[in-house]
C-alpha cells in the first residue's frame, strides 16, 4: 500500500534520469540541461507564479477526470470539454465586451462549467443509451470542439477591428479573473482549483455517490448486484468531469489570455490524464502531480530559450512520466530473481 503511493516518485526520478540521458545524447551537458529544465524556471517569484498558473487548469481537469477514472469511465476528451467550456464562457464574456459589472465574471464562469458539462454529456449519453465506446467518442469530440472554436474565431466572432487575425475582441475587465499580485499572472482561478480539490475529496470519501463510484470502479459486477443506478452514475461522473474541464477552459481565457483564439490550451486536457494517474486519482495527490507536470511545461519553455531545444521536449517528459509510472506499477509486484549461470548449466 505504501508502495502504491511511492511509485509516482520512482517514476519522476526515472523520468529525470531518462531526460538526462536524452540531453546527453543530444550533445548537452545533462546536469546543466536538467538544471535549466527543472530549477531555473522556478528560481524566482515570477517563475513560481507561472508554475501555479499552469498547474491550475491541470489540477482542475485531473480532479474531474478522477471521478470518471475511479468509476471505470474512460473520458479521454477533457481537452474538448475544456474547449467547449471556453467557447460557451467566452461567448458570454463577448456579450458583455463593452460592459462593466461584478455579476459578469460569475456568469462567464458558470457558462463555462455548463458548456463543459454539456459537451461531456454527449459521450455519456451515447454510452448509456447506445452502448458506444466512450474512449472513441470523447476523443473524437475533441476535434469537433476545436473546429467549432476555429470557425468562430475566424468567422462570426472574430474581432471587427482585428485586421482579420483569427481572434475575438478582448474581454472587458469585468470578465477577467482578478490577479492575485500586481505584475504576476497568477489569478483567482487557483481558488477554483483548490475548492474543487476539497469538494472532490468530500464527495469521493464522504458521500453515497463517492461510495458508488468506488465500488463501481473496483467491480462492476458488485455495483450491479448492490443495485446501484449505473446509468445515472455514468451521467453524473461525466458531468462533474466536463464541468471541471469547462472551468479550466474558462479560467484560461478569463485569466492569462483575455480573449478567444485558436490556441487556448497547450493540450492541458490530455496532459491532465497523466496528472490524474500520477496523483493516484487522489485529490491531494493530484495537487502534487499537477505541480510536477506543470514544471515540464515551464522547463520546456526555458530550455527552448536557453538551449535552443524545441519546446515539444515538454511532451517527451510528460510521456516519459506516464511510461515510467505504468512500468513501475506493472513491475511493482514482480520479484526480481537472478539466476546464476552455473545452476542453469547443471540442469541441462
Amino acid at each position, binding site marked *: 500500500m505504501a508502495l502504491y503511493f511511492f511509485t509516482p516518485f520512482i517514476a519522476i526520478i526515472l523520468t529525470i534520469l531518462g531526460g538526462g540521458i536524452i540531453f546527453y545524447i543530444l550533445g548537452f551537458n545533462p546536469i546543466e540541461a536538467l538544471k535549466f529544465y527543472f530549477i531555473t524556471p522556478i528560481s524566482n517569484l515570477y517563475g513560481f507564479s507561472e508554475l501555479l498558473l499552469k498547474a491550475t487548469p491541470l489540477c482542475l481537469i485531473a480532479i474531474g477526470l478522477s471521478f470518471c477514472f475511479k468509476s471505470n469511465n474512460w473520458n479521454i476528451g477533457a481537452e474538448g470539454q475544456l474547449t467547449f467550456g471556453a467557447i460557451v464562457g467566452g461567448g458570454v464574456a463577448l456579450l458583455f465586451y463593452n460592459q462593466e459589472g461584478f455579476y459578469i465574471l460569475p456568469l462567464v464562469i458558470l457558462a463555462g462549467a455548463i458548456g463543459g458539462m454539456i459537451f461531456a454529456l454527449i459521450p455519456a449519453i451515447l454510452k448509456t443509451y447506445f452502448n458506444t465506446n466512450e474512449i472513441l467518442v470523447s476523443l473524437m469530440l475533441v476535434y469537433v470542439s476545436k473546429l467549432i472554436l476555429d470557425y468562430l474565431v475566424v468567422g462570426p466572432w472574430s474581432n471587427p477591428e482585428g485586421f482579420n487575425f483569427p481572434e475575438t475582441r478582448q474581454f472587458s475587465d469585468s470578465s477577467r479573473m482578478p490577479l492575485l499580485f500586481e505584475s504576476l499572472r497568477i489569478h483567482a482561478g487557483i481558488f477554483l482549483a483548490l475548492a474543487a480539490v476539497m469538494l472532490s475529496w468530500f464527495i469521493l*470519501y*464522504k*458521500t*453515497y*455517490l*463517492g*461510495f458508488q463510484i*468506488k*465500488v463501481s470502479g*473496483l*467491480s462492476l*459486477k*458488485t455495483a*450491479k*448486484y*448492490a*443495485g*446501484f*443506478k449505473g446509468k445515472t452514475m455514468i451521467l453524473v461522473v461525466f458531468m462533474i468531469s466536463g464541468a471541471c474541464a469547462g472551468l479550466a477552459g474558462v479560467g484560461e481565457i478569463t485569466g492569462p489570455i483575455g480573449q478567444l483564439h485558436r490556441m487556448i490550451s497547450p493540450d492541458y486536457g490530455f496532459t491532465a490524464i497523466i496528472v490524474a494517474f500520477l496523483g493516484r486519482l487522489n485529490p491531494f495527490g493530484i495537487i502534487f502531480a499537477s505541480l510536477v507536470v506543470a514544471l515540464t511545461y515551464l522547463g520546456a519553455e526555458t530550455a527552448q530559450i536557453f538551449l535552443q531545444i524545441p519546446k515539444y521536449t515538454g511532451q517527451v517528459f510528460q510521456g516519459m512520466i506516464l511510461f515510467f509510472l505504468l512500468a513501475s506499477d506493472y513491475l511493482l509486484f514482480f520479484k526480481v530473481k537472478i539466476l546464476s549461470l552455473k545452476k542453469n548449466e547443471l*540442469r541441462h
Partner: protein
Amino acid sequence: MATDLRISNISKIYPGCIANDNVSLQFKSGKIYALLGENGAGKSTLVKILSGVISPDNGEVFLNEKNLKLSSPLDAKKNKIGMVFQHFNLFETLSVFENLSIDATEDNKSLRLRINEIFKKYNFSIDLDVPVLNLSAGQKQKVEIIRCLLRSPKVLIMDEPTSVLTEQETEELFISLKKFCDEGILIIYITHKLKEVLSLCDEVAVMRKGKVVSVSQTQNEKVETLANKMVGQKLAKIKKKINISKNKDEIFKVKHLNFYSDDPFETNLVNLNFSVKKGECLGIAGISGNGQNELFQILSGEIITPNTSIIFRNKEIAKLNPKQRREYLMAFSPEDRISQAAVPELKIYENVALNNFKASNFFEKGLVNERKIKDHSKKILSDFSVNTDNVELKSQFLSGGNLQKLILGRELITAPELLICYNPTWGLDVGAINYIHETLIKINDQEKSTILISTDTEELLKLSDRIAVIYKGKLSKIMSSGEVTPEKLGVLMGGGSID
C-alpha cells in the same frame, strides 16, 4: 515398470501461515492414493510443489530414488508427472484437437493417430474437431486427461476432479482411473469428498493444518472416522425436519421466465415457472453452466427480462432492481464471493454498506454515516461468528468461510422473508459448511423461505424441502425431497429423464 514417488520433509511457509509442515509421504504405482483434507489443509500447496508451480522452502521429492528438482511446471512434465487441475486450462474457442496440439512436439498426423489409440484403449469418444466450449464438463476433463496421457505419465495427479461432474460422469472417471492404475500409472487423488475416497482409493493420507495426520488403508476406514480425522473434532450431525405442510402460503411465484442471450457463453432460459412457500427451502440442482447464473441474476434483479412475472408477497417485482427488491425483504447471496458479493479491496464495513436498505440509515441525505455502518458491521461480525472484530480490515484478508459468513450475515441481518443463495458453501471447509447449513436451516425454522441454487447434491438433499433440476435452461418438475435420491438427481442433471 514400477514407479515409486517419495516426498521427504517438505515444508512451505507463507507469511503468517505454514502451508506444509514437514510433510513426508510415499506412493507406489498400482494403487490409487487419496489425499484428503479441508480447504487450507495444505493439499493444494503440496500438489503445486509436485507439479512445479511453486518450490518448497525445504525438503525433497524423489521419483524412483532420483532427486527431482521441480522449479517449473515444465520440469514436472519432463519427469512424467501429469496434473489435472480442478479448473480446466483449456481454450474454450479452440477445437479439442487444437487444444491438444498446442504443446505437442510431433506433427498433427501422428498426434491424431496417438489420440485415437488412447480413445480406443480407454473407450473415450470425443469429437476432436468441435470447439471445447461445446463439451460438457466431463468431456473437458477427459481432454485434460488425454493431454496428460499423451505424455505417457508415470504419475497422474487429479485435483478435486468430481466437483463439476454428474454422478454418471464420476463413475466413468473412476473406471478410467482404475484402468490407468492397472497399467502402472501412480494416481494421487485429491478431494474432500469422503465417499469417493472410500469407493475409489486404496490408501488415504489425511492432512490437517499443513501436517499429515494419518496414513491408512481405506478398507479400515469409514466416512465418520475419516471425517473426524479431517476435521479434528467430533462433528455434530445436522438434520433438518422436512417442512411438509402443504397448505402454507406461496410467498414467491415466478411465471413465464424466459431469457434469451446473444452471448454464446450464456445459457438461455426457457419458460421457468415455480413458486416458494413460506418457511420452505426450494432447491435447484444442476451442473454448473446450465443457466444457474442467469437464473440467479434474474431473481435478484440484476437482469430484467420482459414479460416475466415475479410475485413476491403479493406484489409484482419483476421490473425492480436488486436494491428495490431488498426493500421488499429479499436477500441475495451470489456464488461469486470475491468479485460480486463482496469486493476484496474494500474494508469489511464498506462491504457491509453494499446492502443499503432504507431502514439502515447507512447513507443519510447522501452522506456516509460511517458510525452507523461500523456499529452494524460489528454486530454482524459477532452474530455470525466471523473470526475478527476489526471492521476496518480489508475483506481480502478473510478466509473464504469467514467472508461467506460476513456476506450471509449482511444479507440476513435485515430479517428477509426470502433468501436466494447460489452455491453458498462452494470451496469452503467442513466447519464453515456446517455453520452455513445450520444458518440456512434456522432461517426455515423461523418461517422464512430460501431458494438454494446449488451444484452440490448432498447439500441440496440435506437442506431442501422440494427440489427441481435445471438442465440447459429448462427446469424439471419440482419433487418433494422425500422422493428424490442422489441417483435420480444425477440422471436429471445429466439431461436424462426419470419414470
